[in-house]
């Protein structure tokens, strides 16, 4: 790897590690200092490596530079002298000998603890995701803005407010107590779920970024699974869900980057390894006595890894949606459930149920009605697809709907 590729690559993998470890050392109120020192480390690498060449062990080089920068900062900075160094000094170490522990174990622990800190209930979920992307995934502000389809200023503001909140709430970086874990884990899982969804359903056209978001969500959740205390049934269920979805990445888009719908996908492109992994974690998730929405969604996703169009499959999926909607309503689940009803029972029954949903501002609602009327009443099918076309927001959606209208002529 040449320098042009190496530095961004290392930035992606190492920035977050350095930030997490330093932030844990300084306390979350000094999160920006940790980020700044990590950024400076990479700046130094860029300057030095350009002239002197890439060192033999670039990662070790970065760690030692980061350690030096952190030590210098601690000893020289007056604010630090007053506030933090005092705290650190109360430990047996002298300032000059502060141990900055960049061992693998401490990196993993720090990241996990940061994850819990970031997902503090006082911080809005959107900001949690932003912070996680910045601090734990090493995303640039541009990339985060792109993922959220907004601009840099908005993201900066959002992150600034979130950091303020961490400060004012005096959030501690640490592992929650046993009794606290389940409560806090809920927020962590929501964040990771949304992070993954952001990648999976993103309207951003940057496909590389989309997959990155999903992979980062999977990396973070695997940290939870590797830790004995958080290796819990709902964590495994969510991980399993992500594995099943991610298994279809290759098959979901054509060479032009257009979305290929499930029924048109080439299943030989589905990633078998990820499917097997998903099944493994789905089995692990069944050890508890509580069914979370992740369990149900993972089970639905499992059935979708079987391409065969059987009555048994659709019946099983229908019952899972029935349960899912009782736990947590969402328009998407309601629409999907109604589509599945047409497969398990009949189109006629599904049309009656679909019209009760009355989600008239949602273009997928009209897509569903269009689908259900196709072959039953093609005039109504066309009307619904056209209504969907009016409401659709992205070009990809518009193209997909237009194709359905064109296909109607052949029916």
């Amino acid at each position, binding site marked *: 790897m040449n320098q042009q590729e190496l530095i961004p690559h290392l930035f992606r993998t190492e920035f977050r590690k350095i930030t997490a470890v330093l932030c844990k050392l300084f306390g979350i109120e000094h999160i920006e200092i940790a980020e700044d020192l990590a950024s400076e480390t990479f700046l130094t690498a860029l300057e030095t490596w350009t002239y002197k060449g890439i060192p033999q062990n670039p990662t070790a080089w970065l760690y030692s530079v980061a350690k030096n920068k952190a030590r210098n900062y601690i000893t020289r900075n007056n604010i630090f002298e007053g506030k933090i160094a005092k705290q650190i000094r109360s430990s047996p170490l002298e300032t000059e000998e502060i141990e900055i522990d960049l061992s693998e174990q401490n990196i993993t622990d720090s990241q996990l603890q940061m994850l819990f800190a970031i997902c503090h209930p006082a911080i809005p979920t959107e900001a949690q995701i932003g912070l996680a992307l910045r601090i734990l995934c090493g995303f640039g502000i541009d990339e985060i803005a792109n993922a959220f389809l907004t601009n840099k200023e908005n993201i900066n503001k959002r992150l600034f407010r979130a950091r303020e909140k961490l400060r004012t709430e005096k959030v501690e970086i640490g592992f929650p107590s046993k009794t606290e874990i389940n409560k806090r884990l809920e927020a962590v899982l929501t964040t990771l779920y949304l992070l993954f969804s952001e990648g999976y359903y993103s309207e951003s056209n940057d496909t590389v970024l989309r997959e990155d978001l999903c992979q980062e969500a999977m990396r973070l959740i695997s940290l939870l699974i590797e830790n004995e205390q958080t290796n819990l049934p709902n964590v495994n269920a969510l991980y399993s869900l992500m594995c099943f979805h991610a298994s279809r990445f290759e098959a979901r888009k054509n060479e032009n980057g257009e979305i290929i719908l499930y029924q048109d996908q080439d299943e030989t492109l589905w990633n078998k390894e990820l499917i097997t992994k998903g099944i493994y974690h789905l089995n692990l998730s069944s050890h508890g006595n509580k069914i979370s929405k992740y369990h149900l969604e993972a089970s639905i996703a499992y059935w979708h890894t079987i391409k065969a169009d059987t009555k048994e499959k659709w*019946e099983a999926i*229908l*019952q899972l*949606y*029935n*349960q899912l*909607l*009782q736990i947590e*309503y969402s328009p998407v*689940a*309601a629409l999907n*459930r*109604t589509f599945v*009803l047409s497969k398990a*029972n009949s189109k006629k029954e599904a049309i009656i*149920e679909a019209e*009760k*949903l*009355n989600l008239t501002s949602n273009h997928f609602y009209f897509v569903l009605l269009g689908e259900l009327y196709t072959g039953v009443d093609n005039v109504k099918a066309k009307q619904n697809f056209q209504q969907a076309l009016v409401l659709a927001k992205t070009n990809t959606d518009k193209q997909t709907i237009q194709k359905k209208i064109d296909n109607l002529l052949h029916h």
Partner: protein
Amino acid sequence: MDEYALIMRHEDGGKIASPEQMQIWMKQTMDWIGGIAAQNKFSGGTGLPFENSKVVWHNNVVTNGPFGDIKETIGGFITVKADSVEEAVEFAKGCPVLQGEGNSVEVRKIAKRDGVH
């Protein structure tokens, strides 16, 4: 939005259904509830099996029944959100229990805890 309890009443709770029939009813009930939940109108609900059930009488006498099956039996209930009793009645009409002659679904408004009702 008000809440209503839809109480499923069986004319004869003592009838024993075959496992196959039970399975069909089960599926129909799940689809019925799923349809209400898909409209974001489902609040909660529970079946009321006779297994591990008792009746507590005056003077704390406890018996294994009868469970109000002198005339009819309550099989379970669900609670739904509805704008009017008419809407709640529409939900009730879909209840599979009504396939049995003599069965009925009682629609009852749930009191709000607002000190007025």
